[in-house]
């Protein structure tokens, strides 16, 4: 198994010589992504605060960067890259499908309840 590591990340853009150098490479990548998130979180650039698909554009950037980090943690730290195709699929497809379903239901409902408070004759403050 030790010799079976796939050593490419970013679709072969960066190829590491050994598994250990790959780990350090992924650490650098994750640190850069976290650094970008923190910098954006502190400075909150004005032009990224525009609304986009129900949220601020900045929030979408945060979520995408988080998914990027999640991908590298699972693929390289948890060795998903070295597992068989179907192990990857059963883990990722199951989780992604159920999580999307859950998120859709709960966020949709939350937005609806908010709209009832905001526009209908239901008050919560007395």
């Amino acid at each position, binding site marked *: 198994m030790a010799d079976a590591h796939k050593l490419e990340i970013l679709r072969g853009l960066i190829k590491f010589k050994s598994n250990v150098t790959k780990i350090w490479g992924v650490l650098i990548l994750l640190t850069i992504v976290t650094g970008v998130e923190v910098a954006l979180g502190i400075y909150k650039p004005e032009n990224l605060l525009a609304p986009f698909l129900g949220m601020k554009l900045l929030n979408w950037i945060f979520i995408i960067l988080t998914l990027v980090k999640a991908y590298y943690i699972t693929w390289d*730290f948890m060795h998903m890259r070295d597992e*068989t195709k179907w*192990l990857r699929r059963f883990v990722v497809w199951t989780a992604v499908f159920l999580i999307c379903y859950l998120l859709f239901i709960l966020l949709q409902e939350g937005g609806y309840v908010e709209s009832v408070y905001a526009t209908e004759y239901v008050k919560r403050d007395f």
Partner: protein
Amino acid sequence: MDTTAVSTGTEGKTWGGGNQPMKASYGKMMMWFFIVSDALTFSGFLAAYGFSRFKYIDSWPIADEVFTHVPFLHGQELPMIYVAFMTFILIMSSVTMVLAVDAGHHMKKNKVIIYLFLTIIGGLIFVGSQAWEWATFIKGDYGAIQTKGGNILQFIDTDGHRVALGDFVVAESKDRSQHMETNGIWFLEEGSLPSYTLEEVVSGLESHPNVLVRTQNIIEGEKEILSRVESLRQIKENGVSVVEGANLKVNEYGSPLFADFFFFITGFHGFHVFSGVIFNLIIFFNVIIGTYERRKSYEMVEKVGLYWHFVDLVWVFVFTFFYLV
């Protein structure tokens, strides 16, 4: 890798555990099953947080104003810095864990010991940081007034800086002392009393014309600030209690739900980190006494490693949804 099961004489046969679906050993496969189900548990919590947040989208606390503290740097507003440090510690301990797994593949016992030790230290630093984060959040910093409807009114000066209750309220001598089990009916007690009473806050507000009230409502990305007349009216007519810090019932930063979710989700995650540290300690001692050396396989390090990385993975999402978004 070799299976670690006890010999039963049926090894190698399909129904004797010899078959490895998807080329993953039994233990590894079960760890993946557990991780998928645990991931769904955490998604349930985070989605519930999202639900409440969407429900109170116009009055949710702004995380940047809540988590501003860094240890040893008193009185400075530094949002994100400490939590970024915590994230880095956890990613770093994930890295040492992969390095331990890698050293295990090469059967290098001493390297596994060193890397596992570093992983445990990283985990302990993280849990400690989380405890500090909780303590700071529970203690609070400015104090606020809760209204009849359960809303929070905070104080701000005319320059737009937050004002702590202690800056404008004078505490007078109190007749009322905290009721303890020891004095009076033994089965009754109450939580610690706030430093100021509502009347003291009202008179403090009256005598400081530069202090205004800030509500929970978010208007164009900023919390709403009331006029001087309106501030006094709100406090006098609707104020019911003084709130300092946060717990499961009240939260000086805004909706109590925010505190509830914070305690529950970071607490559940912290519990995972803590149990991860325990698992790491167990295999750490197993490595030292040579268990895996005799087994000729360090697969157990890999399985616990999977769990440890999963904890890191969850934190990445908690970090985003509690501190960034």
